[in-house]
């Protein structure tokens, strides 16, 4: 009995605080729920924007991977191509292949008589058709005299019509394809002479002012060369700098200053590095403009701080016990670092490097200053050939008046994103595979 009373007395005050706790509990739960909901909505908003971005790029760009082709019947007239009959490469190279294409078109539409109408007719096929024929004849001069059915790229306006980007129901004055041209296209369509095919040109050609002939190979090669230079320079320099600063350098004012400056450099806007590159590499050393080697050097300056910081973080994460054990059994400092610390830190360093490279891949601003924003048709063969880079190509196409470049811009963005995602996945996989936790 007394026990029970005691208990009641004792529990009187806890009861009271329990009541207070319980009274506030609902409120606190609600607070937490609210916070969670806010967090989830933040994530959803982010995902929504991301899907909007991807959605708009893909829906704008996927059609660029297809290209309209027209089948024409070409007679490789010996009279027209090589009247002397010597089959010399010079004569064959300079022959009038455009004339062959025009003649084929005239034969397909014999009803077209007026000069201005003929001009419209010739615009159905790409100006690249003549080059295609030239290449065929140059590779195989036996073709001369024969007749062949050949698929050639359609003009970008025809391509846009086929893809539905030109609305044929608008008044005639409001569209680039006139009624007459549309009727020709319809006729070809009925004969099965128009086809949409996978656009291999987009992946094999360099830049062009004709959308149907433009490709990203030149830009991709330019990006690869630029990144090779960047990698070859920034990885050894970055790793060496990090190793020295982390493992060998004494801690004093000077190293502190260096550390602060490296962190500052990582935050410098990239255009500044472009200006530096213009002044030093092009101005002082007299290197040519628009070449990947200068681009690579500039991007090296830009990515170095990123790599040094990541490498130092990776070195820091190696536990000191490993160093002490190595030193304890008589290894020199150099042996300790290179046999024991570096192998453990390397995955982290590589991850940092890949992320730095991915950043460099997407950079345009510094390249603007050193002349890599340029129209370059020939695909670069080495680091000294003038070239552009992928993001620069996107910028240039986005600025082109022809409607068909809009979808190619989106397609190039898709290619760039694919590269970036691949590189970042590689970084994640490397980390997963080699990373050790202590």
């Amino acid at each position: 009995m007394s026990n029970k009373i005691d208990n009641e007395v004792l529990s009187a005050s806890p009861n009271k605080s329990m009541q207070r706790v319980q009274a506030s509990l609902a409120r606190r739960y609600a607070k937490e729920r609210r916070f969670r909901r806010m967090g989830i909505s933040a994530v959803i908003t982010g995902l929504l924007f991301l899907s909007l971005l991807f959605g708009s790029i893909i829906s704008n760009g996927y059609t660029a991977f297809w290209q309209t082709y027209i089948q024409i019947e070409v007679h490789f007239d010996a009279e027209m191509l090589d009247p002397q009959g010597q089959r010399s490469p010079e004569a064959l190279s300079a022959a009038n292949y455009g004339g062959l294409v025009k003649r084929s078109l005239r034969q397909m539409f014999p009803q077209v008589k007026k000069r201005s109408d003929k001009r419209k007719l010739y615009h159905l096929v790409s100006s690249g058709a003549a080059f295609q024929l030239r290449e065929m004849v140059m590779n195989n001069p036996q073709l001369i005299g024969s007749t062949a059915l050949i698929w050639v790229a359609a003009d970008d306006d025809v391509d846009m019509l086929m893809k539905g980007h030109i609305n044929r129901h608008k008044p005639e004055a409001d569209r680039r394809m006139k009624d007459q041209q549309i009727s020709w296209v319809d006729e070809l369509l009925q004969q099965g002479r128009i086809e949409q095919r996978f656009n291999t040109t987009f992946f094999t050609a360099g830049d062009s002012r004709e959308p149907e002939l433009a490709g990203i190979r030149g830009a991709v090669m330019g990006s690869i060369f630029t990144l090779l230079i960047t990698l070859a320079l920034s990885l050894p320099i970055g790793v060496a700098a990090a190793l020295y600063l982390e493992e060998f350098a004494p801690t004093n004012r000077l190293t502190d200053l260096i550390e602060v400056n490296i962190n500052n450099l990582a935050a410098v806007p990239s255009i500044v590095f472009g200006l530096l590159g213009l002044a030093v590499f092009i101005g002082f050393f007299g290197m040519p403009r628009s070449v990947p080697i200068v681009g690579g050097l500039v991007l090296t300056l830009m990515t170095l701080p990123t790599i040094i910081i990541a490498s130092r973080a990776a070195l820091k994460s190696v536990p000191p016990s490993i160093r002490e054990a190595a030193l304890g059994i008589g290894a020199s400092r150099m042996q300790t670092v290179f046999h024991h610390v570096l192998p453990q830190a390397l995955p982290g360093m590589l991850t940092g490097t890949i992320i730095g490279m991915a950043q460099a891949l997407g950079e345009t601003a510094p390249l603007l200053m050193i002349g890599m924003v340029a129209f370059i048709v020939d695909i670069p063969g080495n680091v000294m050939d003038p070239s552009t880079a992928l993001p620069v190509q996107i910028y240039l196409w986005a600025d082109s008046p022809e409607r068909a470049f809009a979808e190619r811009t989106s397609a190039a963005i898709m290619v760039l994103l694919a590269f970036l995602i691949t590189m970042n996945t590689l970084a994640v996989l490397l980390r997963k595979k080699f990373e050790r936790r202590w």
Partner: protein
Amino acid sequence: MTKKSLIPAIAGASLLCASGSILARDYISIVGSSTVYPFATVVAEQFGKTTKFKTPKIESTGSGGGLKLFCAGVGTEHPDITNASRRIKKSEYGRCHKNGVNEIVEIKIGYDGIAVANSKQAIRFKLSRKDLFLALAKQVPDPKGGEKLVENPYKTWKDVNAKLPASRIEVLGPPPTSGTRDAFAELAMEGGCKKIDWIKAMKKRDKKAYNAICHTIREDGAYIEAGENDNLIVQKLEANPNALGIFGFSFLDQNTDKVQGAIIDGVAPEFEAIAKGTYPISRPLFFYVKKAHVGKIPGIAEYLAEFTSEKTWGDEGYLTDKGLIPMPRAERQQFAKDAVELKNLKL
């Protein structure tokens, strides 16, 4: 191990190449105006595909930037040709001479119209250059009368001219770095400014003040700098039927389903009108060749021949397909002759 030795090998090899190519460049290097860029690139591509020479490299640096690079000196590290959407200035010419670029060949390639356009969903504007000046200048004559200037008070087009619609003045145009902006200021704004007698009289007395009045565009939000990307302006016009946009004729030509060009002083921005010179806002386009490089860099003479041939810049040449307005035949012949003779420009 192989990877480690590969890296210095690549670096070494590339440095070797670097020193090698400074001595010789086997492709033409072209810089300059972003307005000429779409035309020059077509010619360059055609040239590269039909001759044994490499395709010229063309950078879009703007007219002023191009001339600066061009006039920096003679030698393979400097560009051979610069494109310009205006004529070379006396100061630039002097700079060229100071740096040893003594012989320059000037080639005019044709004309470019500047369109003032709006969305097809709205009604087509009929403007005079004076309307444009009054709507867009920073300072305009006091609407109450008298020979004095006030900060531009006009809010709607109707305020400027009672015949125009009552929509808000909202014009998207290029930034001051652009040659299109310079040309617009000179041809449209000054063209309208001159119509006001007392300002016109100022030209003789105080040219500086006259230019400041006629060329300065208002900064209170009615004129929106929309960047150098003309495609973006077209898209914005489509989204906002009340706005007008200023851009090159080639963009109007490619987007006739979305936008319509305003009629300026009674003339619509159409190919024939610009070619005849009746459309008031059109300007000549040029390129300049460094004579000292002809013969040193392979292909310059041939590039000039390609550019100045009838199949390129003629009435039915492939540049007209890209929106270039050709010069009259006599003028074409004159400049083609200059190109062959490499006639030295004297200013």
